[in-house]
């Protein structure tokens, strides 16, 4: 039974690594931020840290439910100098877009699975919303608008 899930678990481990790595990226980006909107922008990345960690945890729980132990493989070295909010957002958008694409690519493989299909569809909905929020903020050019939206939701 457990062997049937090996490929799916491998893919879930990769998804978990995407989320965990994004969490660390946001954590570090928060301290690189400079500029007048810095405080509002920091809050955005703080939320990002919490959410990506929650997503990683949710995936880890799915792996455990399949009878496996999550394996986290990340190769990461984060450096870089000060960064403005717009550039930081562009990085965040790249990361979120990749996470969304990864969930979308994975969906066909779990269609029909009683739990995973629903889980992945939910993640796609959440990530799609995130990407849209970031795109909107990039267009608006201010982190305050994004935070208003996040606080309302």
């Amino acid at each position, binding site marked *: 039974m457990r062997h049937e899930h090996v490929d799916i678990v491998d893919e879930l481990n*990769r998804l978990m*690594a*995407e989320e965990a*790595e994004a969490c660390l990226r946001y954590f570090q980006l928060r301290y690189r931020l400079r500029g007048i909107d810095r405080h509002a922008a920091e809050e955005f990345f703080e939320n990002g840290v919490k959410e990506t960690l929650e997503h990683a945890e949710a995936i880890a729980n799915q792996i455990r439910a399949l009878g496996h132990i999550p394996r986290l493989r*990340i*190769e990461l070295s984060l450096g870089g100098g000060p960064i403005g909010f717009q550039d930081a957002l562009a990085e965040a958008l790249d*990361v979120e877009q*990749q996470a969304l*694409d990864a969930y979308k690519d994975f969906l066909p493989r779990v269609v029909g699975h009683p739990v995973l299909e629903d889980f992945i569809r939910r993640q796609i909905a959440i990530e799609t919303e995130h990407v849209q929020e970031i795109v909107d903020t990039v267009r608006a050019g201010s982190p305050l608008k994004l935070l208003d939206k996040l606080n309302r939701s």
Partner: protein
Amino acid sequence: MTAAHMDLRSLRRCRPPPTMQNVGRIRRSARDMGLSGPRSISPSVFQHEAGFFLLVRDSSTQSLTCQTDVPYAKHDMETWKEFEANELTHSAAHHLLAIHAVGSKYGGWARVSDIARQLDVTRGSVSINLRALKKRGWVNTDEHHMVALSPEGTKIVQVILAKRVVVKSFLVNVLGVPEPRAEIDSCKVEHLLSDESGHRLVQFMRFLSSDPITKKVLTRFRTFECECPDSRACDVCHGRCLMDELDRAI
């Protein structure tokens, strides 16, 4: 000998290296002395026709001092300069090679997910690294997030692959290093080796295979067993036994 050179020679040798706080003042002082200090070398290293100099301002005595150990400084500083000026990092080299490897199966275009699998890293990581490669004009992307090497990127990949072959061939065919080890070591240096050294390595290998005498030399080398003299002094090591030092290396 120029006035600036005279000034430098009269300065005493100093240690330790400067802190970031006094770098600005050191730079201004160095400019006044007719020295140029490219940022790419190091904050306090300045180039002069006589070589490279390390300048330090001592805040307690308010004096500017200079390390003028030119032979040592010149070699090391130039290496640092080249190393820091090297825009092609190990990571960038591997990303370009991965795009080349994946793209060669799909008409030159690669998906981020396939590049990530090839490198065994996350898609997010690839995506962030691609930003830097794109900025340098080494890769192109399309509206579907597909990635391809630009002509400049392709050129870089070809040079890297050529250097990998050269180094590996030298390690295996000349030095007799086992192939798996040679593969790893050539991968480590492929993007750092200068074109000049690459050419010389090729010439050396061609020289070794050019006539029966050099071929004999190579055959003799392969059976040669290095025995260090008890004095630990030989023509190669000049007073320090490199074999001993390499044995101690981790």
